[in-house]
């Protein structure tokens, strides 16, 4: 088996020398289609498999690329190398508009909007005189490279596969990067990513645009390969077929797009000749098989065909190349005793229910404050109000003197407040190290394009060095290469703390960090928190384990039924009859 670094170059070299071999033209043509389809499906891998969104309008974006190329080169005689960028530009505009409108809402509005977009564009192309109506545009010139015409199937083959392989490489690079981790966090909901400082809306729009650009490139190649365009290959059913390709191949995997494209193209050809013969009348009966296979794959092999191949590939660990990396920048830490967090009469109403009723408390730098109370007392809601996950009904939250009430949670994270979650939120299919590195999002800056071109490696090493350092701090550096989803609950909670630490916070909010931990693990966690305190960290902690809270905190705020009961030192709280009544009831 080839080592990982050599697999892609070997595959690329093999694909690119194929046309020099005595392969029949039929197969070259087939492989051209496979390449074209794979480029489009790569976009769907990003959208559907990685981010949990989807689009049925990718064929329409292919149409934008193809019609732009055909129209500009035949009617206006513009060079294909310019029309490529015009086509991409147009599809970016459409994708930005559709994305901006739909992606703030829940995930199913994008596919619905893309169905409408696909249908509307297809009818437009089919009815415009200047686009040739249903006949389309004929006589599209071939692409020329340095005076050499790519008019033949073999000529354009090389260009198609350079684009396809380049796109695969760019998407692979993107997924293993700072923006890539943000994109991979989209599928599991937005709360955690936003708490790490990620604008989830922005990344949803970005990947939708990337998918549209890939589709437009495929369309440009398609127009110059077919040398003619008409509306039918860009209809809504073709859009569904692209999704089908991605799902069959393995919708979460870059190479699934290629496997899917190959399998679907070959089977489609076979079925198109076989089924009408079998049935005895003509018609596109292959869609029956496609539909049934799609349902069966989603039921029985939701990861597609690619997983049957990865089973045979050895798992390779990330190479530890960050030993020499420079440290990430750190923020100015508050002076001990400085007023850090000032929660003033915050209130949250859900309809008629007052979940948090004018609660006030303060945290000074260097303190560990516990927030306790019976179930349903409003502790987690208070947490969510401070971190911007929920909107305040009334009241003020000030952090280091500035008001943070009403800010989105990513802005609050930027100011130095980081948190963990009562129910662990993580990306199970990423390693522990990568999950923790997501915490460093706000301390780094590489964008999507830089990641695709692999110009982000220095910063990546810094991020991983920092992530490993934080994991070492909580004693988990031995597990950094494991998949986060394979960890037990206790280590997952610790990993969340490491991820929060990776944001370089001034205030750490821990929502039931000791829940699900064994006794030894709890002691280790308490040691970690004490050590953090000695380093000047301030911590607000919701916890049920009284031993844990009493031994650790400087002050405790007790809540019951949404109101603050009392606030005091652990000793005062333990002695308080009010607290005892809240937890155990009163004697009658």
């Amino acid at each position, binding site marked *: 088996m080839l080592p990982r670094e050599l697999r892609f170059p070997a595959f690329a070299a093999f694909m690119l020398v194929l046309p020099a071999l005595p392969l029949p033209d039929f197969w070259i043509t087939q492989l051209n289609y496979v390449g074209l389809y794979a480029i489009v499906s790569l976009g769907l891998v990003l959208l*559907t498999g990685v981010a*949990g*969104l*989807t689009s*049925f309008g990718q064929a329409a974006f292919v149409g934008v690329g193809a019609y732009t190329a055909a129209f500009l080169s035949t009617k206006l005689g513009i060079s294909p190398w310019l029309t490529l960028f015009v086509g991409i530009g147009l599809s970016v505009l459409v994708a930005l*508009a*559709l994305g901006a*409108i*739909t992606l*703030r*809402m*829940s*995930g*199913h*509005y994008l*596919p*619905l*909007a893309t*169905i*409408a*977009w696909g*249908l*509307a564009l297809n*009818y*437009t192309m089919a*009815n415009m005189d200047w686009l040739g109506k249903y006949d389309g545009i004929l006589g599209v010139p071939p692409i020329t490279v340095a005076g050499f015409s790519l008019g033949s199937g073999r000529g354009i083959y090389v260009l198609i596969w350079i684009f396809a392989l380049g796109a695969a490489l760019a998407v692979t690079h993107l997924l293993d990067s700072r923006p890539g981790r943000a994109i991979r966090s989209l599928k599991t*909901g*937005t*709360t955690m990513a936003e708490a790490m400082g990620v604008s989830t809306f922005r990344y949803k729009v970005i990947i939708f645009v990337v998918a549209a650009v890939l589709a437009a490139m495929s369309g440009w190649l398609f127009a110059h390969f077919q040398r003619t365009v008409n509306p039918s290959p860009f209809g809504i*059913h073709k859009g*569904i077929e692209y*999704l*089908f390709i991605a*799902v069959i191949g393995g919708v979460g995997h870059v190479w699934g797009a290629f496997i899917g494209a190959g399998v679907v193209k070959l089977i489609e050809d076979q079925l198109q000749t076989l089924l009408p013969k079998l*049935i005895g*009348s003509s*018609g*596109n*009966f*292959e*869609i*029956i*098989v*496609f*539909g*049934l*296979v*799609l*349902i069966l794959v*989603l*039921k029985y092999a*939701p990861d597609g065909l690619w997983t049957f191949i990865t089973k045979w590939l050895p798992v390779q660990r990330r190479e530890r190349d960050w030993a020499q990396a420079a440290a990430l920048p750190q923020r100015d830490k508050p002076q001990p005793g400085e007023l850090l967090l000032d929660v003033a009469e915050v209130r949250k109403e859900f309809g008629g229910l007052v979940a948090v009723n004018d609660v006030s408390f303060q945290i000074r730098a260097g303190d560990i404050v516990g927030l306790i109370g019976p179930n349903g007392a409003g502790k987690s809601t208070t947490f969510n109000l401070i971190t911007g996950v929920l909107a305040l009904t009334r009241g003020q939250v000030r952090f280091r003197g500035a008001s943070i009430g009403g800010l989105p949670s990513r802005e609050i994270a930027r100011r130095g407040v980081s948190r963990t979650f009562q129910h662990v939120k993580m990306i199970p299919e990423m390693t522990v190290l990568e999950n923790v590195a997501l915490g460093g999002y706000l301390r780094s800056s590489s964008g999507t394009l830089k990641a695709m071109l692999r110009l982000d490696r220095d910063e990546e090493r810094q991020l991983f060095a920092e992530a490993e350092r934080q994991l070492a701090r909580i004693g988990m550096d031995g597990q950094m290469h494991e998949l986060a989803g394979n960890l037990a609950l206790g280590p997952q909670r610790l990993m969340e703390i490491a991820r929060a630490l990776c944001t370089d916070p001034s205030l750490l909010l821990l929502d039931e960090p000791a829940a699900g931990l064994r006794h030894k693990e709890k002691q280790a966690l308490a040691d970690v928190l004490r050590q953090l305190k000695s380093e000047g960290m301030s911590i607000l902690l919701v916890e049920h384990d009284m031993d844990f809270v009493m031994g650790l905190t400087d002050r405790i705020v007790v809540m019951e039924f949404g109101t603050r009961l009392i606030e005091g030192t652990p000793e005062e709280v333990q002695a308080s009859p009010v607290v005892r009544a809240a937890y155990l009831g009163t004697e009658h």
Partner: protein
Amino acid sequence: MDFSIASILTLDGVTNGAVYALLALATVLVFAVTRVIYIPQGEYVAFGALTLAMLQQGKVPGTVWFLLAMTVAAAIAEVVHGVRHHQAANRIAKTVLGTSAYPVAVAALVWWAAPQNFPLLVQAGLTLALVTPFGGLIYRLAYQSLADASVLVLLIVSVGVHFALTGLGLFFFGAEGFRNPSFWDERFTVGPLTLNGQTLIIFMASVAMIIGLWLFFERSLYGKALRATAINRLGARLMGISTDGAGRATFTVAAFIGALSGLLIGPTTTIFYDSGFLIGLKGFVAAVFAGLSSYPQALLGALCVGLLESFGSFWASAFKEVIVFSSIVPVLLWRSLRDPHGEEH
């Protein structure tokens, strides 16, 4: 455009809108109870219209064989499920019987009735009886075992179901298109308008269906149970409501509504095996108007879609579909501005 043209276009739009409203209600209903975005809702429209057309010609409709094929598949699915879960043989037999008894009986009835040339209304009744069981069978075969999957996965399954149903529609009905006779040929003149009986039937059927659905969900215990399933599947299950049963019932109602829409729209336009897709999608646009959640808004949206379509075809007939489907964009914009923080998916 003068008043009389405008009023004719309005009547036309509202008539089509009434049919789209039915489809939109079915879409909202299915999404609310099962979280399935049911793209193939329009397929029932074609099934209904084509079944009636075949019966009119005295032929056994392809739907009979189609239904039997689905029943066999569902029966096999039940047996496999039963064997896997080590159920007793008589229990498996009971489930299989429960799944297949009605479809087989109704298929046999229609097979017998087809050459008898019964009156139109009887044939319409047979059509409804024949197409309605498709809903439950489709739910059983495609969705039941995936009921807890994400909205996204269910949506992709819907697309697969749409592909399969369209292809099978071609197989069982052929590529020929049909136009059904009107149920009521009477004409009424009101000012510049000529109302024909079919239009009145469409209105009455839509209104009756909407009121029926409203009564069912507001007044009946089972309707409330379905709403409970929509809000919290686990909670409903703990209250003794079968979520599988709720899913099948919902899909059955949706199939009935679809077949009824097919009967209503059949006399106004020629229907082919794949015509349902576009008709269904217009109902779908209306459902999106309503955020896939509100029945009254879906009704309103459907009337807008119908009017847009009729006026669009007057001003720019080639672009009427473009106009109808593009109209979803401003609606989504409005929705996103009104409620920028939609729930997490």
